């Protein structure tokens, strides 16, 4: 009787639309909740982070100039792709965390619906949060939200897919680009999700994914001068303090989203005010007169 050998997957980073290994050559072993070795994944370094920022910065111009309609279509496409490959993500989550398949399926289903939900915000939040202002002089005066630029997003350990999707979508829907630091304990679902983004017509560099150790990357995230904002979903007060301390250096915008794992499953996460944390309001004036 001959048995067939499985072809094992190598999990890599996602930077600039490509899947490189860490420039440091390091790797980590992903283990299940029970301590069983699953697969190896890339251990991102400071330089990987700097490369990711470069890629994200390069992508801002094109992505922010895409029409809101187009950005919405791409997010919807990501939902299509995730729906189509739901089984794969269910498997990744279940074998990593040890939760039952039904619970993993619930997480993936919610992640799909969350992408659909945020896809629908791209061409609407401007109408709700922008304004034409009735100034007391003869001027046409309007205020409109614009993306802030490059945003670092830190995902919590659990839920490893749903929290990441819920944090990234409101950031990129307005035209920002993102560097995502995945769950540290369960990175494999995030790495697979990056493949789904890569096949959703999302331009390279709009989302970049780093797997590895948060504590190692945080000082460099905090001190990087070309990062415009940090969205902190990590449920660790000490790490958050370090991140926030670094924002003063170039006045990065900082938003903390510290939720219990179960909270990510609730509808309160579908919050358009999260979009506002990474936009800037521009006000413009023009005289009215003949």
């Amino acid at each position: 009787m001959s048995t067939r050998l499985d072809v094992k997957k190598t999990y890599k980073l996602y930077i600039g639309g490509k899947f490189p290994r860490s420039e440091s050559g390091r790797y980590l072993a992903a283990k299940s909740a029970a301590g069983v070795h699953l697969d190896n994944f890339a251990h991102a370094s400071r330089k990987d982070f700097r490369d990711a920022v470069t890629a994200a910065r390069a992508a801002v111009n094109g992505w922010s100039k895409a029409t809101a309609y187009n950005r919405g279509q791409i997010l919807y496409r990501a939902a299509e792709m995730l729906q189509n490959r739901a089984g794969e993500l269910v498997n990744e989550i279940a074998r990593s965390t040890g939760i039952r398949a039904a619970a993993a399926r619930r997480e993936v289903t919610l992640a799909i619906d969350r992408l659909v939900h945020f896809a629908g915000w791209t061409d609407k939040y401007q109408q709700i949060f922008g304004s034409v202002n009735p100034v007391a002089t003869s001027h046409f005066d309007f205020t409109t939200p614009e993306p802030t630029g490059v945003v670092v997003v830190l995902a919590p350990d659990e839920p490893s897919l749903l929290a990441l999707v819920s944090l990234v979508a409101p950031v990129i829907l307005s035209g920002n680009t993102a560097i995502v630091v995945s769950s540290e304990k369960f990175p494999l679902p995030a790495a697979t999700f990056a493949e789904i983004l890569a096949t959703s017509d999302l331009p390279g560099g709009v989302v970049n994914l780093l797997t590895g150790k948060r504590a190692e990357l945080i000082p460099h995230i905090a001190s990087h001068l070309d990062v415009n904002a940090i969205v902190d979903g990590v449920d660790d007060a000490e790490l958050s303090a370090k991140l926030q301390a670094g924002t003063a250096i170039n006045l990065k915008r900082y938003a903390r989203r510290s939720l219990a794992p179960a909270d990510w499953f609730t509808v309160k996460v579908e919050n358009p005010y999260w979009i506002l944390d990474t936009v800037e309001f521009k006000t413009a004036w023009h005289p009215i007169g003949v």
Partner: protein
Amino acid sequence: MKTKPNALKIAGRKSRAGLQNGHPVVPLRERRLNFGDKWDYAPAPEESKNYLIAPRHELFINGKFVKPQSGKHFPSINPATEEKLTEIAHGDAADVDKAVKAARRAYEKVWGKMPGRERGKYLYRIARIIQEKMRELAVLESMDGGKPIKETRDVDLPLVAAHFFYHAGWADKLNYAFPGRTPRPLGVAGQIIPWNFPLLMAAWKIAPALCCGNTVVIKPSKTTSLTLLRLAQIFQEAELPDGVVNVITGVGETGTAIVQHPDVNKIAFTGSTDVGKQLAQMVVGTGKRITLELGGKAANIIFEDAPIDQAIEGIIAGIYFNMGHVCCAGSRLLVQEGIFPTVVRKLRDRIQTLRLGNPLDKNTDIGAINNKPQLEKIRELVQSGADEGAEVVQSRCPLPARGYWYPPTFLTGVTASHRVAQEEIFGPVLSVMTFRTPEEAVERANNTPYGLSAGVWTDKGSKIFKIVSQLRAGVVWANTYNKFDPTSPFGGYKESGFGREGGLQGLAAYSRLD
């Protein structure tokens, strides 16, 4: 005095050609654009034979195609060839009643209770299928209505998909749309749409109605039923629950039956001001909500400091797009006196370059007039213009022997009291008037019972905002014309109707906000 349709006349201009080296020399001011045969294009027909049209179409009620109670059908033709395309079901009051009952059941048992998130996903599915079938729908729209494929393919159909996409995203976000309010659906919406943008008007009506939780009974114009029926097939493919949208094809009385049905909560109508007024009368005392999108006689104002060549393109697009079958068409040109000769000369030359012919040819700019009564109305009104003293300038383009055609035309020497300055022609006919001051332009622009749209052409930003603020029109285009987007509300002032479609404000028409 009968104007020959193909004769080009310029009022009061005599050519004074001299001779140089034995050759006649036309003074620079008088030279006409003449490309000879350099602008003869080879035919470029869009492929259409793969799209099969069934010989007979039925009504769409409760998720299925069903025969009309009367058993009667009427022919629908291709206005470019006068050939019969298919037979359409003649729906009557009994069919309308079945449809309203189906819509009410669907509203109460399924759609009105469904979470917005799921309603949105149906609309997204529909949008995606429309995108897949865009070419087929564009070809059918061109064949059924006479519209050039360039427009159905590049304007109508992309906007149709975009409307479903935009409204799909609102379905689970309505709580944010109106501060302090929790919007609720109205119930069953009765909708009647016209023949000038058949599928686009269907999208403008159906998408917001469904997004806000209502169900629909909708009637297309009798000359353009095909694409809405094809959309009904798309609803089936998207597994839209039975009864959420019902299509009752038919004639004027069919529409009246919808408006008068006691179990319809909301009426939406796009069409002529005359019929709109009749419908407004019909709903008095019934408690039904109503929105109307009616006719227009938009002023397109061009100032001396306008970018002239861009403005000419905008004026041309404003009146000849879709053969002028556009409620918001820029059908009155108000030209500041100083540039009048230049503008008229450029317009005259430009209309001569517009290609009129087979709507399925990708080079065609001007397609067929949608139906014979409309063609006769256009002819009658242009004749009235000539009779009342205006000069008629028309393209010399050849007209095909079969089908309903009218060449691009403009009239100069029009005064405000002429019929061609007051009545909506709804054809490729532009009435040209002059003005001196901005104040006069605004006064002339506002001097009709209509108030749907207007255009302003000037390079000076402050002038744009001033004029925009003074024009009594629901949509004002500055240095552009005929731009539409699902995020941008559209609707009229005064007798052009009330209510807005599209955008944040457009959701109000389909919601209870109390």
